[in-house]
């Protein structure tokens, strides 16, 4: 199953990057969201899958899923959420100010 999840995460990575290479803000930001999904899935997978109960202690159960990756993912999810929210608002503001949601039209030159 880990291999399959690795493949899925890689597909998410690839699609994320394809989106990042697009012009429109929406696609690009979608790319970043997919990117974080891929990263989290990788992290989960690398901590081994299906190795036991949810990491909540229950009497008599000794077999738990690895809690550390979960804790790390949880932190990362929240952080990614913060960043994505900011990115969304930033993209919106950039659009309203520059009147374009096309990254290619927002190249600008360094001599401005």
């Amino acid at each position, binding site marked *: 199953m880990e291999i399959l999840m*690795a493949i899925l995460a890689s597909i998410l990575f690839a699609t994320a990057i394809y989106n990042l290479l697009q012009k429109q803000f929406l696609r690009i930001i979608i790319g970043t969201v997919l990117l974080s999904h891929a990263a989290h899935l990788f992290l989960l997978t690398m901590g081994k899958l299906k190795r036991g109960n949810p990491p909540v202690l229950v009497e008599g159960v000794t077999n738990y899923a690895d809690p550390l990756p979960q804790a790390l993912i949880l932190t990362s999810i929240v952080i990614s959420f913060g960043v994505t929210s900011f990115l969304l608002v930033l993209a919106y503001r950039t659009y309203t100010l520059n009147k374009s949601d096309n990254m290619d039209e927002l190249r600008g030159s360094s001599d401005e």
Partner: protein
Amino acid sequence: MIYAVFAPLLFAIVIPFLSRMKHKIHTGWLILPVPLLVFIYFVSFVGSGFESQVSSYSWIPSLDISLSFHLDGLSLLFALLISGIGSLVVLYSIYYLDREERLGHFYTYLYIFMTAMLGVVLSDNVFALYAFWEFTSLSSFLLIGYWHFKERSRYGAIKSLLITVSGGFSLLAGLISLTVVTGTTSIREMVGQADVILESSFFPLILIFLLLGAFTKSAQFPFHIWLPDAMEAPTPVSAYLHSATMVKAGIYLMARFSAIFGGEPSFFMLLSLFGIITLVCGSYMAVRQTDLKAILAYSTISQLGMIMAMLGFGTDIAIFAAVFHILNHATFKGSLFMIAGIVDHETGTRDIRKLGGLMTFMPMSATLALFGTFSMAGVPMPFLNGFYSKEMFFDASLQLSGYAGTFVEVLAAVLPYLAVIGSIFTFVYSMYLFFGTFRGKYKEEQLPVKPHEAPFMMLLSPIILVVGVIVIGLFPSLFNNGLLTHAADAVFGAEVTKEISFWHGFIPPLYMSLAVVALGTVLYLTKTSWEKVYTIIPGNFSFNRIYDWGVNQLEAASNRITFTYMNGSLRLYMILLLASVTTITGTVLFISDGINFEVSDVAPVTVHEVLIAIVMAIAAVATIFVTNRIAAILVVGVVGYGLAILFVLYSAPDLALTQLIVETVTVALFLLCFYHLPNLTKRTESIAHRGMNALISVGFGALMLVISISAYNSQFFSTISDYFTENAYKLGGGDNIVNVILVDFRGMDTLFEVSVLFGAGLAIYSLIRLRKNKGAK
């Protein structure tokens, strides 16, 4: 000794304050005693009983960097030139520079230079030497740019800086290589390990590095091009830095390291070759010049070439001649620069085509110039010091035995002829300089100012120098025992005994000198008939043009290169980034044999998980193809919810909860922000464009896949997770292990995760409000 070296620098700091009083008293007077005292200090060492001495001051002992000053014959000679001519130049400048000028700047730069130059010639520690060396370049830069509102000054300043500093960096590399090879930073100790250096694999490199340093500084071909442009500096500076002292730093360096490299064929060859080429080219080009200072500049170049060549010869006579000529050149060239300055000052022009017949107006200057130019030309007169060293040069060029190798032999055979050719041109421009300025037709209408003789005090400095010319010529032995032999000894590394006398009998050098005078006279008289040759050589091909082209290209090409990839396109950046990461990481993984597909220890595959995975994969791929923005957003939501379900399946309920909330809010935010934005456009890019995108993304995805599988299959160690399950309740006091980790074991992460949200919130707030505020204005 440190006080002697740093006295000018210490004064340089107070000069800006002294210059406030410049309307009462010329700043020059206030500070003249400094170099004079230094000069007297160094004169006190002169004498036949001179012993070299060292005084050391620690600076950065842990790096073996110290201010250790080593006063031997060579450095004494230079120290005397620096302080002596320095004094004369200050004296001269008092009359040359008006009080309205920025005297504070001028003298500050000049005194910084004085310390730097003294430091160069006295330092035994290579890093200290280098530090002083760079400061000579910098002060020279500032002095050339003294009249910075002139375009030519700025051009000359930058040119000299670029060339001399690049040489300086090369020198630094050479010096560091030397310390790496010898393990010491002291030049004296390096000399003791000469054989270690010569045998090390670094030797060729060291030689090249050091030569580049010396050649750029001493304006050797083809790095000579900065010196003529340095003439934009005030004339006292030209006389001081750009003829008598700074340009001789390279000579000094080579002389200093002759003790190590002397006798090496490569050293001989490079120095002699470049020296003699510089001599010939410099003198050849000097004849063509029309500006007095330009003639003197090219003259300096050629004379430096001559000295360099003599150092290359490496025989005792050559080295003695070199040392002798250093002194002689400083005297006659210094005086000639000052005279040129006086002519400029009194007539308002330095263009030799406008000058002529000034003898009657400026008899004193003319007399001084006569001695200077004739000494420079090497006219055989007993009272002209230039002749002595010139004759020694011829002599040395004929005595180049002891070097083996075909090319070396050919070079040795050709050298005397080149020496004569160079000297002939030297003779021509010297005559041209004197006769063109002081004799011939007086062209009143072309002169901006009616000429008259300069005040005596202004003439005093050149007079002293010309007296030097004559005294050295008449009584060479005065300088020989106390000064020159010590210097030559220091260079040669062994006792050099040389008697200087005017008449040696009918020997080849005499014929050579006579040939120079005869042919030189002929060429001078027929100058107008052969001058056309300059339009052919160098013509359009000159190193100046190469330099100009190079500097232009530095900016133009940089601009082109940079903006081919820095074009603001996020896509291009991303492609470059991803392509680099993919190829390099992939290659490393491949060569380090890190790919590991031997699957082990995996959980069983189940149908429903596969289906969920398929859903997520399809949804992810769909984000690329859907054109409705809401659809795109919702499809991303599907991926997120799918991930939440995976979290559910893989025993991570807390993650599932968080993921669900976050995904929902994110989708809502997406909808909120993107409602106003245009719908997604139909895909219009070319196939190649899309193919590239696909290639890059699939490539990167594949890389991640390979790494993840390899990493998963290479579990070298058990994870630290057991500890958490064992201790979560016992030590952490909670039964939800993830929670315990988050709030306790890794509470730090959580605290700063909250800070990120805090920052994001404020950033979003100010992003919205700041615009509103601006809009309201």
